[in-house]
């Protein structure tokens, strides 16, 4: 399988270096250090361009890989219950196709519903466009720029924007063929993977562990995000229906899709309902949409998701945000949706499977060590403050820190 080949090809260079990997402080600097760094950076640039050049193939093949990883437990569950390998393969394929089918159906159903609604709003769109044009010429812009900007408000353009999120109609067919074929082939090939990884372990323990951890992390993240995304989409849909925003179902599907884009997705998902809310109900409705989306998004993505995903991903916020932008530029909209699995793949290939690079894990966002240190420091600082404040509290002064003061006064009677 292509990703296995690549894994091995990429993992080979670090191997010979591994034996003389002493603690970092004493490692002699290689005579080729600058050359290696520049070659590594140049290699990254060239690989990014290569990936961008085959983005259409790459993104759908990778999506198939992620889906295969996500449904793999179904296969092992079936095999544990004595189902034959061939039957398990068919069951896995059916499960994935069913999931995709449900999504595609929901998407097209809501899209068709929205399309039927759209002609009613053409007039409103044009009034808007002329209003904006008048405002812009008031600012002193030329007619040409205004015409350019007005075309953005063309209803057809709106459809284009939505359509580009999943690819154009022609690309859709190609993508579907690649995706389904890859899914079937990967489902068949996934049957011996467990054995292969087990055999790989004695020879390349780090690579095997990293690959295993990668599948677990991606599965956990994608499955959790999918369920939370469904919840978010349905709640948004119901809320929009109650508020009377047109095309609620489509915006629900959009919210589901965008929930896979960390940090940025929310802002993309909220734009169309705001536009249509403004068309139908003016400012009050826009405010209501923003408040509803904000609350739902904050609860799901800031409170629920980190707790459920936990340390499975362990990417820092800065890296996450950058990876969304980076993969969106390299691979297009699907790159933004798959940003986390893609970045984890890069980390698995370059960092996790390479003993010389483990120190970068912390800088990339694996804060386990830092958290422990922080907790210890916090406890120490708190104890110190308590000690310091204890005599002060009895003296009746010092209440700069209410928490510490309260703790001190709690401690005082006992």
């Amino acid at each position: 399988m292509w990703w296995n080949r690549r894994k091995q090809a990429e993992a080979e260079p670090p191997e010979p270096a591994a034996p003389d990997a002493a603690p970092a402080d004493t490692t002699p600097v290689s005579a080729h250090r600058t050359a290696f760094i520049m070659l590594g950076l140049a290699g990254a640039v060239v690989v990014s361009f290569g990936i961008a050049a085959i983005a259409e193939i790459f993104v759908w093949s990778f999506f198939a890989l992620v889906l295969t990883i996500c449904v793999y437990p179904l296969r092992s569950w079936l095999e544990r219950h004595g189902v034959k390998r061939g039957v398990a393969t068919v069951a896995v394929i059916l499960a994935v196709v069913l999931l995709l089918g449900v999504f595609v159906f929901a998407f097209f159903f809501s899209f068709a519903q929205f399309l039927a609604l759209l002609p009613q709003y053409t007039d409103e769109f044009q009034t808007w466009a002329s209003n904006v044009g008048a405002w812009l010429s008031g600012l002193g812009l030329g007619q040409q720029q205004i015409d350019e900007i007005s075309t953005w408000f063309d209803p057809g353009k709106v459809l284009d924007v939505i359509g580009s999120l999943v690819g154009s109609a022609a690309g859709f067919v190609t993508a579907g063929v690649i995706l389904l074929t890859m899914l079937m082939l990967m489902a068949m090939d996934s049957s011996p993977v467990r054995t292969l990884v087990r055999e790989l372990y004695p020879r390349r323990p780090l690579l095997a562990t990293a690959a295993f951890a990668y599948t677990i992390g991606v599965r956990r993240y994608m499955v959790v995000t999918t369920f939370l995304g469904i919840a978010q989409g349905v709640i948004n849909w119901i809320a929009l229906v109650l508020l009377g925003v047109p095309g609620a179902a489509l915006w629900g599907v959009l919210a589901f899709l965008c929930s896979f884009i960390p940090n940025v997705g929310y802002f993309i998902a909220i734009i169309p309902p705001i536009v249509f809310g403004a068309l139908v109900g003016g400012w009050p409705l826009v405010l209501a949409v923003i408040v509803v989306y904000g609350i739902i998004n904050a609860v799901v993505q800031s409170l629920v998701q980190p707790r459920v995903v936990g340390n499975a991903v362990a990417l820092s916020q800065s890296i996450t945000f950058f990876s969304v932008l980076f993969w969106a530029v390299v691979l297009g909209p699907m790159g933004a949706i798959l940003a986390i699995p893609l970045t984890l793949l890069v980390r698995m290939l370059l960092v996790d499977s390479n003993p010389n690079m483990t120190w970068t894990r912390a800088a990339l966002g694996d804060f386990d060590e830092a958290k422990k240190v922080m907790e210890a420091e916090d406890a120490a600082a708190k104890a110190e403050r308590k000690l310091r404040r204890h005599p002060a509290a009895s003296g009746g002064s010092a209440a700069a820190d209410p928490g510490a003061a309260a703790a001190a006064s709690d401690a005082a009677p006992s």
Partner: protein
Amino acid sequence: MTRPATTDAPTGAGAARAGLAHGTRVLLTFAAAVVAFAGIWLGREILAPVAVAAVVVIIAHPVRFPLERRGWPKWAATTIVIVVAYLILAILAGLLVFASAQFVAMLPDYADELQATAASIADTLSSLGLSDEAADATSSILDPGTLVGIAASVADAVLGFATAFFFVLAYVIFMAADAARFGRLNTVFGSTRADGIGTRYFSGVRRYYVVNATFGAIVAVLDGLLLWALGIPIPIVWAILAFVTNFVPNIGFVLGLIPPAVLALVVGGWPLALAVVLAYCVINVTLQVLIQPKFVSDAVDLSLTLSFFSVVFWAFVIGPIGAILSIPLTLLVRALLVEPDDHAETLRRLSGNPAQEGSHHVVEPSQAG
């Protein structure tokens, strides 16, 4: 196996294993550098916001230390860091927006005079024997239609700028939160030596911008007062320009001088323009060339040639913002490539960093003594 003649570091076992001839290695390194910088150039739109946000967070990060010593919770300290970073960005953005609005509002008033001046310059040029072509080009640059076109394209660029600014704001939040966690790690960059280089880099960047902002403010106030006294229109805009261009090493002063000098030429003819140029030169040469390097060179230790080259280079690679960020970017390249490498001792000295704490050459004598 040829060893580079520039190394004065002890050649260890690593050198004996070296597999590439020196020339090949140098050529490969340069080829790779070309590819890498081409990649940065092509990706500048997503990389520039990262660099801006990183620099702002580096500057604002120390705010948290006194707060944490006073027992503030971490999230509150992080919030204050974000607030300070946003204040810096808001002040800069506010100054720029205010200056451009003033400038655009002033343009129509002086369009006729601009054209007249351009015509007279064209006459002078042709009388000096320059071809009409050059003269035409000069006058077409100052054509009010062109100026309006420039203004419109500026308005067009504002959209792209707003997107990038939004990214910067988002990065600031995430980076401030991440920086709080990095601070607690035992080693951030893998070894104590690398951590030393990192710490020096961060404090160098911080000092550089703080010193530059202070001097920029002084220069801006002096320039503004001077222009106001000479009766140049919108002196406050040129003061702001002087403040912003002060962050561009070496040639920033020239960039900040051109527009007020041109305006002085339009308003008051050659004598006024000469007065502006002379006064600017006195103020800026005294402050920027004689006094400021004493403070800045402490902070960054970059040779003058290198700092000038880095302005041109980074402005070319990541656009105008690269001129303002040139020093931190060059320092980053040096911290990544030159400082950890004992073989690159000569290169480091050439870059303007004569001695380095933590390297063998300094540690050994101090241990002996």
